[in-house]
């Protein structure tokens, strides 16, 4: 037993080096740039993020996703096949994705001059000169509609949709990025073009760049990429999210062997003053994988589920605080009761001193892993930039975690999580649970 107690190491100074190397500037037309030189491998990762996610959809639900998806379907003089061939031919990887807050385009390329040039010229054209061709639009619309059909066969996708809708009511975060069948059917190319013109502009963009480049090369590269973006203006503020005024329980009948359970309420914004107490506290509650309280109570002690978790998803506005699990229909009621009890107990009593110390050790000791690859660094930079986090966010992460006290966690959870006003969504064959109860 004694042997396993060794090696509780103090964290050391290397963890702050990553922060010191981050460079930040703003281009002439207003793009905020975050650059991290990584000379070890002959490659670079470029990510551009616009404040143009589904929260900007308005009535045209799905338009942010479609706009993002259509950029590489036609640009300059090239059709989608030619664009793809230009990336593939030099071994570059282009990817794009659209979320509630963010619209993201990424490029990974070797830094060999000739290969990189082709990759960047293509990326730049896709970014600044998309043509939104009609045939590609019709095809992508059809594919999105099939995707919407496929969501109907996934209890996970159904519960997610119902959960967000119940949490956010008529707030923009209520909708899925994929939109609705009716809004996708009604969408036009003009909608996409208008969306692009309004939101895909320099002042609404952040660039993260990591790779084997020096500052001079990085500045030139970024300038070349964004030179043709119009200046535009930053997107208007997303409205605040209202707190739920009462608990809600929604059951959806679905012919699955498991019930998928999601529980939660609106949580916190990025940069929220309670962020660190809630983040560290939730690490104890359900955020730390195989050692969290929820994992222990649901899986270790009772064998009720394969996965059980809780997260805060901080966003531009209050992203969700959510808890979830999947269990066979017959145990849905039992598992849900345990989940509710664990949350209520945690809010009332907070974590134990021992659990809090363990969570901090995990976060502090594991920090080096969060900045160990170019891929993780470019994600960190994009998030810091997009959410206007301080440049020393990574440098101060460890001291911020270490500073969290037991009293702060308890206080923050009591102010921010109300166990009596949680939304509960259950998707599954609920008749099985009821039959068992009778």
């Amino acid at each position, binding site marked *: 037993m004694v*042997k*396993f107690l*060794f*090696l509780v*190491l103090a964290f050391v100074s290397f963890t702050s080096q990553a922060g010191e190397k981050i460079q930040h500037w703003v281009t002439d037309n207003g793009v905020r740039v975050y650059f991290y030189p990584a000379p070890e*491998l*002959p*490659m670079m990762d470029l990510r551009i993020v616009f404040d143009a996610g589904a929260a900007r959809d308005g009535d045209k639900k799905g338009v942010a996703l479609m706009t993002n998806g259509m950029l590489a379907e036609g640009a300059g003089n090239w059709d*989608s*096949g030619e664009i*793809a061939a230009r990336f*593939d*031919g030099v*071994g570059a*990887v282009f990817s794009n994705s659209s979320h509630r807050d963010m619209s993201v385009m990424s490029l*990974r390329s070797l830094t060999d001059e000739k*290969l990189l040039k082709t990759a960047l010229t293509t990326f730049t054209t896709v970014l600044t000169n998309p043509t939104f061709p009609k045939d590609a639009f019709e095809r992508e619309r*059809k*594919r999105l*509609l*099939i995707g919407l059909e*496929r969501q*109907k*066969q*996934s209890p996970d996708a159904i519960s997610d949709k*119902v959960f967000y809708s*119940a949490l956010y009511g008529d707030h923009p975060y209520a909708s899925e990025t994929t939109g609705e069948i009716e809004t996708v059917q009604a969408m036009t190319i003009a909608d996409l073009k208008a969306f692009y013109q309004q939101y895909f502009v320099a002042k609404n963009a952040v660039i993260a760049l990591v790779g084997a480049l020096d500052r001079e090369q990085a500045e030139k590269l970024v300038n070349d990429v964004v030179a043709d973006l119009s200046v535009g203006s930053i997107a208007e503020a997303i409205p605040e999210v*209202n707190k*739920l*005024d009462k*608990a*809600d*329980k*929604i*059951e*959806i*009948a679905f*012919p699955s*062997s*498991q019930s998928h359970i999601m529980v939660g309420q609106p949580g916190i914004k990025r940069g929220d003053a309670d962020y660190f107490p809630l983040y560290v506290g939730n690490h104890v509650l359900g955020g730390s*994988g*195989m*050692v969290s309280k929820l994992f222990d109570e649901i899986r*270790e*002690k009772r*064998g*009720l*589920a*394969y996965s059980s978790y809780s997260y805060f998803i901080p966003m531009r506005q209050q992203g969700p605080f959510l808890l979830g699990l*999947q269990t066979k229909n017959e145990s849905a009621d039992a598992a849900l009761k345990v989940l509710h009890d664990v949350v209520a107990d945690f809010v009332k009593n907070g974590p134990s001193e021992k659990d809090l110390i*363990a969570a901090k*050790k*995990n976060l502090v*000791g*594991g*920090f*080096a*892993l969060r900045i160990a*690859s170019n*891929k993780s660094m470019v994600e960190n930079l994009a998030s810091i930039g997009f959410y206007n986090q301080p440049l020393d966010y990574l440098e101060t992460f460890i001291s911020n975690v270490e500073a969290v006290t037991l009293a702060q966690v308890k206080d923050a959870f009591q102010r921010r999580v109300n166990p009596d006003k949680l939304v509960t969504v259950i998707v599954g064959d609920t008749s099985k649970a009821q039959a068992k109860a009778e």
Partner: protein
Amino acid sequence: MKKLLFLASLGLFALSGCATTPSMPDMSKPIKRYADFNVYEKTLSNGLKVIVKEDHRAPVMVSQVWYKVGSSSEHSGVTGLSHVLEHMMFKGTEKLAPNQFSKIIAENGGRENAFTGRDYTAYFQQMEKRRLPVSFELEADRMRNIIFLEEEFKKEIQVVMEERRMRTEDNPQSLTYEQFSAAAYVNSPYHAPVIGWMNDLENMNVHDLKKWYDAWYRPNNATVVVVGDVQADEVFALAEEHFGPLNAAPLPEIKPRKEIQQKGLRRLTVKAPAQVPYMIMGYQAASLGDSNEDWEPYALEVLVGVLDGGISARLETSLVREQQVAASIGSGYDAFTPGRELFMFSGTPSQGHTVDNLEQAVREQIKIIQSEIVSDVELERVKAQVVAGKVYEKDSIFYQAMSIGRLETTNMSWKLADQYINNINSVTKEQIQAVAKKYLIDDNLTVAVLDPQPLDSSKPRVRSAGGRHGG
């Protein structure tokens, strides 16, 4: 305490000069250094192979222990044993309480997990570089000292059944794939799913697991891989300290169960509640573990690149963009499979098209490959992607360790991964055509389709309160 007992028993061995269990020869091999790759390997006297790849980019490391046991070691009636055992490996040893393993790793800032495949079971920890001793001490402990508690097993088998429901039973595409594999493989152990059939899980007991553990979890059946900011000689010394004292033992004999030659097209339908149809086609094909011609698997790798290596490849271009018969389509093949591999196509037809239309469209693409030589541009694209991919892989120590561990565990050498670019570069256009003609034929084909059944009503049935918002 454990350690002292262990030394005592060794002493007894030396004195008596013989033992009831067969004595194992010294299997140690000296340190080998492969300077070009920063890779070092050493085999301890108990047969444990240790491979270290130094990568000093960041002050972190990944430590993985790979066992040569997986679902392909199992037989009918006990499918899923290797995977359930993987779960039990977290449930306590003579020194550690259930789940204490994970708590120690977590307190050391580690990320950890485990995975089971057809041909391996592997455990890993990613940590700050100085925590390697923690990983080695815990892994060496659970290599031999797991205790199988009935009450822990009873809970954990429920967890695995929940995992199976989540991954397979309630996922119509996974369900289709499982039944497809069972049809495409007849006598090969790849016939059964890694997670096991539900009925086998229901009838598994803790003694089955203990036997399985005693048979396979031995140093002479394991490979330890460490990649990261470490010094190889220090890792070897540490491995000697922790794993060195563990006993080797003869391993069970596994019959080859080489897949029979298919004698004609097989078709099956899977009915499940679903909204969107789905189709899988798989052709039995050579792999590096099941081939008479070493170049064939590499030609098949290039072929899958021509068909599906990126958005500009043939399947996306023809089936998604031009003909618009597919909403999604993909092709897959893995040369590094130890048994018979399947060259696969899977996808969803677009609106107004059927799975039959999609199958015909795939068949036409195959015909074109068989009758017309691929272009220089396509071949160069595939090769450029492979070269770039090799650089990108180096951004992840985890992936580098995976690649080494997997190859070693499936009786191929990690060096194959580093020879990969050369082997791909030497594939000719004629060879691509030759493997397409030899393997992508009806006699080797199995086709499975998902036949969507009604999902019933998905309207809210019960609402205990309204969903109104305050303010």
